[in-house]
């Protein structure tokens, strides 16, 4: 779509290390991507593949024991580009960006709010911190955003506590809290996982509509491929801390190249498929990113592995058609890059 515009965020070779007694855990091992204004990038992968750590590294809110390295260039409202990783994670500069320019929606709305304060108080805190010190004006902005995300009777809801909200309403409130300062980048970490399917669709539509209005970029983290197809312009598939395949949603859905992506696609139930077809499942689980052997991270679980090749070196991302890239030795043979 808008190839000419500068990306809002450019993540370059992001690594997250966790020092443990047994050695160094490397849950994120060199992730790179960029997102442009108005664009949605879907970050897809199983639990434990490093999606959430990647997103939290952008905001600098990972636990202290997680050390991030690499570069995260963010273009602020003033047009200047800064490396977020260079900022002190507890300092003023990054706090001025959090919630204001980059904000995040968390996966479980029921625990994302403190039970001790009203919803209004907690959303209002955002505007008080970033937009205005005037209490009346701040409350007005908060109420407007609560109405916008579809919270009926916002004036009354403003003074209610999280335990008086339903799950779907809490997720709306959480979205209101993330969007109230009109951020340039929204990170949505599995925003609909904890909700039932009908509410899911409503929430996703709401997010799309608000994205159009505000022209913000979205990093959409999920393991649900159906949601990705609905929401995302581009997709990055993550496995064991690396991006193994990336491209536009159309490219990836049409012709998944990496065996892992193909496995993921195979494990989605499609309407119209014969009843007796068993859903495909990938054997095993994501290994622990500790003392990794050389070779492809997917080697143990891959049904297309080539002994003597795949267990020697980890393949790099190779450009195939258009923006479609994949990291697999099989792609090298078939792809146009060679």
């Amino acid at each position, binding site marked *: 779509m808008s190839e000419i515009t500068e990306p809002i965020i450019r993540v370059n070779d992001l690594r997250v290390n966790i020092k443990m007694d047994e050695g160094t855990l490397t849950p994120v091992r060199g992730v790179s991507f960029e997102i442009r204004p108005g664009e949605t990038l879907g970050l897809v992968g199983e639990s434990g593949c490093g999606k959430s750590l990647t997103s939290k590294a952008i905001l600098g809110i990972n636990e202290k024991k997680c050390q991030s390295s690499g570069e995260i260039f963010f273009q602020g409202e003033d047009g200047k580009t800064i490396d977020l990783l260079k900022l002190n994670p507890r300092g003023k500069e990054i706090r001025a960006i959090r919630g204001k320019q980059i904000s995040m929606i*968390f996966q479980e709305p029921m625990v994302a709010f403190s039970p001790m304060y009203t919803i209004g108080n907690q959303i209002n*805190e955002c505007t008080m911190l970033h937009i205005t010190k005037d209490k009346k004006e701040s409350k007005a902005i908060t109420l407007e955003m609560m109405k916008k995300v579809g919270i009926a009777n916002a004036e009354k809801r403003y003074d209610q506590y999280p335990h008086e909200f339903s799950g779907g309403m809490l997720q709306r409130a959480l979205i209101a809290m993330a969007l109230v300062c009109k951020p340039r980048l929204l990170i949505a970490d599995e925003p609909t996982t904890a909700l039932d399917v009908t509410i899911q669709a409503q929430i996703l539509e709401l997010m799309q509509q608000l994205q159009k209005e505000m022209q913000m970029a979205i990093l959409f983290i999920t393991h649900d491929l159906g949601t990705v197809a609905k929401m995302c312009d581009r997709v990055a598939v993550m496995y064991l801390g690396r991006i193994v395949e990336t491209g536009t949603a159309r490219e990836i859905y049409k012709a998944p190249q990496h065996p892992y992506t193909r496995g993921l696609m195979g494990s989605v139930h499609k309407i119209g498929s014969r009843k007796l077809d068993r859903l495909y499942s990938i054997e095993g689980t994501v290994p622990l990113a500790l003392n990794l052997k050389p070779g492809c991270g997917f080697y143990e679980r891959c049904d297309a592995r080539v002994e003597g090749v795949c267990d020697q070196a980890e393949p790099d991302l190779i450009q195939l058609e258009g923006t479609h890239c994949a990291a697999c030795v099989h792609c090298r043979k078939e792809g146009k890059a060679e």
Partner: protein
Amino acid sequence: MGNYILKRVLTFLPILLIMSLVIFFIIQLPPGDYLTSYVAGLKAEGQIVDESELASLKERYGLDQPWFMQYFKWMGNILTRFDFGYSFKYEAPVWSTIASVLPMTIVVSLVTMLFNYLVGIPIGIYSAVHQYSIGDYCFTLLGFIGMAVPNFLFAILLMYGTYIWTGTAFIGLYTSEVLVGLQQGTMQWWEVLGRGDFWGRMAIPIIVIGTSGTCGTLRSMRAQMLDELGRNYVLCARAKGVSEKRIVYKYCLRAALNPTVSGLSGVLSHIFNGSTISAIVMNLQLVGPMLYEALKAQDMYLAGTILLVMGFLIIIGTLLSDILLAWLDPRIRFSGRRAE
């Protein structure tokens, strides 16, 4: 909120009545009464006891009646005339006997509680926020020592220490001058509170009685804060751009205070019970040693009244902690409303 408090206060009265019944029943359980132990003492000294005089004494104090009759008579006098009975051992009305030590006991208890919270809570917060730092390790070690060392041992050590360092021995809360004044009635207990030397003397008992409770508060505060700091809403607040300080004090502290506040009455009873042995060791004129003497001599009205007063104070503590909890945690405040 008003309704909530009213409901709490109303439940308070039946609890008090049931408590008084149980107390009285238990107090009179041991075989014999004050007169039998008094007579045994006289006989041991070789004195002749007049049986008819004994019978008339028994009748006068109602000791020949069954226990529940004694209880109703006692309760009736309390409710109608605020008369708590007669102390055989001190040979004076119970109320005036207790009045000589009760105010100071309450003062010492409240100050000890204050010490408990003012020291325990901040250190607990510090320990949690700086988990596994050198400071945290030091406070944790001190906390365990404080919880493990018995009060009376602490009292003896501190008394020995003050004697070695200052050269004056620590005996009791009051200087001899004040003690004489109090006994002769030329001085009232509230006048004592204005004296600097009293507060200097107060330090040792407070540290002795309060240390184990303080260390308990410290430990539970630390654990609760760590719990809260690991919750998702903290991450969410951080992602909003809220500062660490505000996260700790606005969000975590309020939630973490819950067990500490609900333990308020427990701390109070801990102070009452824990102070008895320390008060005997340090020769403090508090209620604890008096209760001990009363129980030893089967002075049932005195012992019963002391227990009743302590129970009353603990119930008030519970009431206070309930109100505080409702103020702290909206979920508690609303639980009643939803049921209606």
